[in-house]
């Protein structure tokens, strides 16, 4: 069997689990979880890059990891202009072509602004970024972002940090059905079983942060998500049994129909 590689733009990834790097109890706990999760793509907020103090810097230790690609994110940006500026600075510091475009003007619920995200994506694609926008689970917006050249779309399962799982499942299914770029469920997942569900549904990957960082044992939870994501993907590839609302009748209603006149 050939290896199940996920392609985001020209980037190849062997793991379908992406990790966020905030909220951990220490940088070491975060690194341990990243390693245990088997992820090959982590995102780190530009605002947590700290060139003046190594101890407070998330970027430095992550950049040392082998086989892990770095994707700076624009968390903290309130509008397109700020996000573009943050993305540029992030690329300058990390040399990564990837950017998680994240614009949440409301610092409390952290839900993404579709309008500013769309505008920033246009500019960032122009600037040759591989843009992975964090978006509401809106099928039309997902297509619009694909049309302008985003490398993937990342609809939310639920609001960041809520652990409410795949609350937007029905919309995500439509996004997956229509997409020509990878679909990554970003935010809201609480458990490996939900990650498995997302992959079974046909999502190409999931991005997880709070569920791992806020677990009792983040590294163990990272490993659990790894297994969940792998199981979900295997099940998707294996082809799930169709569901049915009605039992198949033993005396079919259509047995009277004949094919010869």
């Amino acid at each position, binding site marked *: 069997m050939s290896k199940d590689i996920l392609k985001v733009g020209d980037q190849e990834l062997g793991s379908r689990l992406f990790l966020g790097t905030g*909220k951990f*109890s220490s940088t070491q*706990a975060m690194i341990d979880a990243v390693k245990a999760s088997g992820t090959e793509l982590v995102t780190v907020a530009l*605002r*947590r890059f700290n060139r*003046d103090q190594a101890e407070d810097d998330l970027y430095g230790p992550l950049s040392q990891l082998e086989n892990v690609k770095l994707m700076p994110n624009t968390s903290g940006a309130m509008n397109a202009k700020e996000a573009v500026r*943050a993305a540029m600075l992030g690329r300058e510091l990390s040399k990564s072509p990837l950017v998680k475009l994240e614009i949440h003007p409301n610092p*409390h619920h952290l839900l993404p602004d579709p309008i500013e995200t769309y505008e920033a994506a246009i500019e960032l694609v122009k600037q040759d970024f591989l843009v992975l926008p964090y978006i509401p689970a809106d099928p039309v917006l997902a297509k619009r972002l694909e049309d302008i050249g985003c490398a993937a779309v990342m609809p939310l399962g639920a609001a960041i940090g809520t652990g409410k799982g795949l609350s937007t499942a029905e919309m995500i299914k439509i996004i997956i059905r229509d997409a020509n770029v990878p679909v990554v469920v970003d935010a809201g997942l609480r458990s490996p079983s939900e990650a498995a569900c997302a992959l079974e549904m046909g999502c190409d990957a999931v991005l997880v942060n709070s569920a791992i960082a*806020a677990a009792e044992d983040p590294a163990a939870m990272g490993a659990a998500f790894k297994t969940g994501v792998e199981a979900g993907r295997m099940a998707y590839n294996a082809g799930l049994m169709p569901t049915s609302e009605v039992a198949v009748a033993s005396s079919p209603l259509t047995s009277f129909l004949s094919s010869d006149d």
Partner: protein
Amino acid sequence: MNPESLPTWLNPEPWLDLEFTAADIERAIGADTPNEKTMAALLSPLAAEYLEPMAQRAQAITRRHFGRTISLYTPLYLSNFCNGGCLYCGIAGDRRAKRAVLDEAQLRHEMEAIKSMHLEELVLLTGERMPEADVPYLKECIEICAEYIHNVNIEVFPMSEPEYRELAEAGCTGVTLYQETYDQVVYEKMHRWGDKRDYFSRLNAPDRALKGGLRTVGIGALLGLADPKFDILCVYRHAKYLLKNYWQAGVSISFPRIKPQLGGFQADFPVDEKMLAQYIFALRICLPETPLVLSTREPQRVRDGMAGLGISKMSVASKTTVGGYSDDSEESTEQFEISDERNIPDFCKMLRSKGLEPVFKNWDSTYREPASYEKV
């Protein structure tokens, strides 16, 4: 004056005298969609018996939303010149206080000291509006501080929207402004003269700050001045009002508590540690996403215990004298006494021992420009 004349968005009257049963408290602790009634239940005397389950719930919510982290900041006193008439304040106009104001060279010394501690978030403080420390002075100070660190905030006198805008454009990110007390009768008694007597001008200052382009506002009541249940309910309602009306605003809440200080002011409604904890847990349960802040006014034991238990942000290594960080200016009178005098390494060590990561930089100067609420 009486509370009836408070605006409806603030007036806590309908929830003040509700009676609650044990079942009400239990339901409130687990509430999915908390509201004023939830808040009132959690502030009730009966809820004091549920401090442990409230703490458990508050910790779980804090961990989910803020992770295992505590954001750090430090205050920087620019000036203690003040003509204010605050009955409870150590640097009020009628106190025999040693007054000082930082000049540019002194401010740069302070900033070098702060920068060497790797702090990236700062709150600049002054007394009331004075010729020694007015808006043009603040603007200069903000510009200087912004050269050194990412996140510069102010905790000064209320000002007009254009003045706030000027400071936002100079690089100021947020403003902290406590109403002190929301009880108008007590407010009038506590503020004996000067601009600060205008209750509503102060109440509406966060609105002006946000309209002026600042991104965050910190609110709070000086606990001990008036009935704390009244004040905390008002803080809750004030926060909700701001969140609804300025949807891009970051709103945080602090819990200053009256401590003995110069002038020997005694609180009429002393708030003990258990009450303080109850208020913090109640606000965490009812405002799950709002940063809750605890300063070095509180003793080490309370700070260590409350970190992550509702509290998501803390000041550290604070000096409340003018020129306190570089220690090269004349000694001035401090506004209040610091209870937790630990240095940054010791404080961070404590946080880490509790499985909490101190976060020094949680913001980037890339985002430093005035916010806008203008509808196109």
